[in-house]
């Protein structure tokens, strides 16, 4: 009896300290923590029940290899969303960059030139979007919708047919993989299959780190949060809101350019339907990662886990034998709905507690 009481008290005190810890978190940190927790829980469940590929480290690396460019555009979108905006052109810009770079390389362009071209296209879109949205004060949804149609159209004009890149340098880049033997596994035939990571993943992780530092430790990054939290206040606090907003779209455009190049390194071919729906996946990643559409709350670390969560659920669906593509869409939809509900419940509870 005495013992159970002791355990009960201990349990109570742990609960109390956990709730105190949660209370000390900012909204951004809390939502991100929830996402990370759910991601690991989901992955562990998948390991335990489905086994197979989930038991190999390569599963995680495959998820990264396939989604490097999604991670990059999600970073850009997170910045824009934290500032209270939206950019739905990112997928189309990625696609345009892929097509332009492939054609450029196939027509005798250099590797360095293609990188500059990719960054240039991304920056150009960011520049125009940013200018129209911040200085002419047009709705971001409309502006980037126009940008999306424009970029898609341009991609099709460049080439209706898929274009395969036939550049030696690019092929080399594509085939260069970082090999990590100790994370590999022994196949059925007894051979060691080492884990392989593409260059694109390194680029994506670099982008992630840079954006993380920008948002956390740079003045500009904190200004994004201030602007998204309360635009009027940000103005009164002496922040140049117009320039800040302009820069958020510029960075998002630049990241779309990088994303396009990474996409090309992964597939090695341009296609008018490349990266179709990527903007929606990026928005979903950001939201699952704890970025609020209303602005002011979010974090790229959360966004990274948002992308991974989204990818894991798709893998789980496939591994469960539901191969038809619509199952992925349906689970993605359900997942998004679940996270939004969870976020509003958690934040609502917090607001209520505060009011008392």
């Amino acid at each position, binding site marked *: 009896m005495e013992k159970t009481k002791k355990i009960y008290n201990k349990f109570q005190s742990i609960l109390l300290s956990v709730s105190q810890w949660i209370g000390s978190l900012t909204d951004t940190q809390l939502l991100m923590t929830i996402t990370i927790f759910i991601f690991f829980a989901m992955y562990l469940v998948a390991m335990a029940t489905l086994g197979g590929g989930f038991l190999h480290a390569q599963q995680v690396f495959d998820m990264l290899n396939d989604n490097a460019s999604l991670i990059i555009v999600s970073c850009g979108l997170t910045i824009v969303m934290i500032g209270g905006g939206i950019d739905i052109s990112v997928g189309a810009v990625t696609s345009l960059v892929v097509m332009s770079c492939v054609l450029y390389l196939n027509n005798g362009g250099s590797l360095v030139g293609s990188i500059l071209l990719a960054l240039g296209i991304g920056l150009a879109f960011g520049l125009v979007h940013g200018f129209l949205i911040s200085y002419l004060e047009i709705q971001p949804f409309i502006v980037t919708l126009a940008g999306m149609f424009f970029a898609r159209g341009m991609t099709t004009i460049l080439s209706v047919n898929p274009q395969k890149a036939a550049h030696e340098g690019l092929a080399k880049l594509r085939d260069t993989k970082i090999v990590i033997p100790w994370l590999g596994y022994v196949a059925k035939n007894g051979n060691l299959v080492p884990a392989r990571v593409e260059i694109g993943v390194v680029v994506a992780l670099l982008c992630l780190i840079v954006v993380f530092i920008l948002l956390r*430790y740079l003045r500009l990054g904190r200004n994004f949060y*201030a602007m998204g*939290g309360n635009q009027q206040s940000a103005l009164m606090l002496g922040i140049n809101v117009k320039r800040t907003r302009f820069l958020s779209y510029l960075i998002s455009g630049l990241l779309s350019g990088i994303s396009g190049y990474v996409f090309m390194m992964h597939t090695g071919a341009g296609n008018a339907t490349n990266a179709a729906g990527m903007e929606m996946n990026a928005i979903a990643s950001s939201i699952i990662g704890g970025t609020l559409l209303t602005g002011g709350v979010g974090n790229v670390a959360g966004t990274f886990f948002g992308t991974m969560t989204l990818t894991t659920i798709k893998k789980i669906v496939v591994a469960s034998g539901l191969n038809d593509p619509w199952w992925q869409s349906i689970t993605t939809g359900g997942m998004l709905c679940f996270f939004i509900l969870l976020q509003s419940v958690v934040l609502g509870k917090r607001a209520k507690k505060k009011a008392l």
Partner: protein
Amino acid sequence: MQDNTLLQMRHIEKRFPGVLALNGVDFTLRKGEIHALMGENGAGKSTLIKVLTGVYQMDGGQITLDGKSITIHSPQDAQSQGISTVYQEITLCPNLTVAENMFIGREDGAWVRHKLYEKRADEILAKLGIPARSSQQLGDCSLAVQQMVAIARAVDQKCKVLILDEPTSSLDDKEVKMLFDLMRNLKSQGVGIIFVTHFLEQVYEVSDRITVLRNGELVGEYLTEQLPQVELVAKMIGKELDELSSLKEAPEGEEEEKEVFYEAKNLSSSDAMPFNFSIRKGEVNGFTGLLGSGRSECVRAIFGADKVTGGSTFIKGKQISVTRPIDAMKSGIGYLAEDRKRDGIIAELSVRENIILALQVMNGFFKPISRSESEAFADEYIKVLNIKTASKETPVGSLSGGNQQKVILARWLLTHPDYLILDEPTRGIDVGTKLEIQKLVLKLAEDGVSVTFISSEVEEMLRTCSRLIVMRDRHVVGELKGQDLNQEQVMKTIAGGEAQG
């Protein structure tokens, strides 16, 4: 005394199209003083503040700060010259930490040194006695603390003049006390504080001096201890009785015998403290009190316009439940809202459509009022109320304020209410129309309609109402009728019993 002067505003003039909002106003603020700026709506308080903070450019006059003549171009400019403002609605970012809110927008370099800012913020918070941690998210703090953080930011910016614009309206008593302690603390450090509020008791609790404005003109500057509350109220409202003759006949004694039409017991809403209220058939009564004393909140609770949180309501002794405006309308209650633009007219719709709106809602949308019927209604009320409009299809937005008000009146009259609540029906409209509306109120009462009338102008209420409920700081503080219905008594009650006349 003279060398103590911190800020001096001389002969400030500000014109808006057709209105002289400030007419040669003088204002002087001394070091280490809390100076209350008082006046009713439209007196020019906020215009004066906005001139001082650079939101408006003055059309004439001179501002000197620390003996030097200055011009102020923008709020940022005012801030850099040492004039900071903390507004009623908090202009900080709730999603950032307390420390960030204190330093964002004024750091040097590209990097944010979180640790350094948090340390400095903690020092400032401790010095000013503000109960917050610098690493805390601002949105998690109470409103009072958020306001104090805004003040701390201003103080750290070396502000000499601190303007507090209605800082206490959303705070509870304990939080107000905390804020006042902070204000006294700053005062002892030599900061000059301009305190704008409509809570009389708070003015007497904390301020050293009072400047009263009325109709854009300076009434005077007084030492708080030398100005009794009654006199302050009289100075704010003004004693000039206007030339219009008294409309009301001698108070009728038989009113007492008429049955009680509506009664509220301990009614409270999200914005109104519990109150008791009743009105007889054919009676005209009114809520009076200064702006923000809670008079509108009470009638909004009666109509169900705010979330009702407690109490019970009766019509002719039978209990009814009013939680939404439609419940009140079905019980025969009409409510003409205080804010005509927000809660009244739908500017894009025509006069006719605005008039039939309430009746249509009561009928339900499956029983539309036919075109010919609605045209007949519109014609009738345009004539009865003498609404000046080009045609019944003219958008209401293009009518003058007085005529818009008549359109809303027509809307409610069309529902044939037994009880009509008119909240500031005469605000911002010309004298002729005012008189028409007052006459209409008395006529309705004769026809057996109960009317509750609210107006900022006491004379107007005295002319129309046979009973006045007086409110101060969100509480009912008195009820006046018969012999007591005179200006002096009303002002005494508004100002509170503790003041000696």
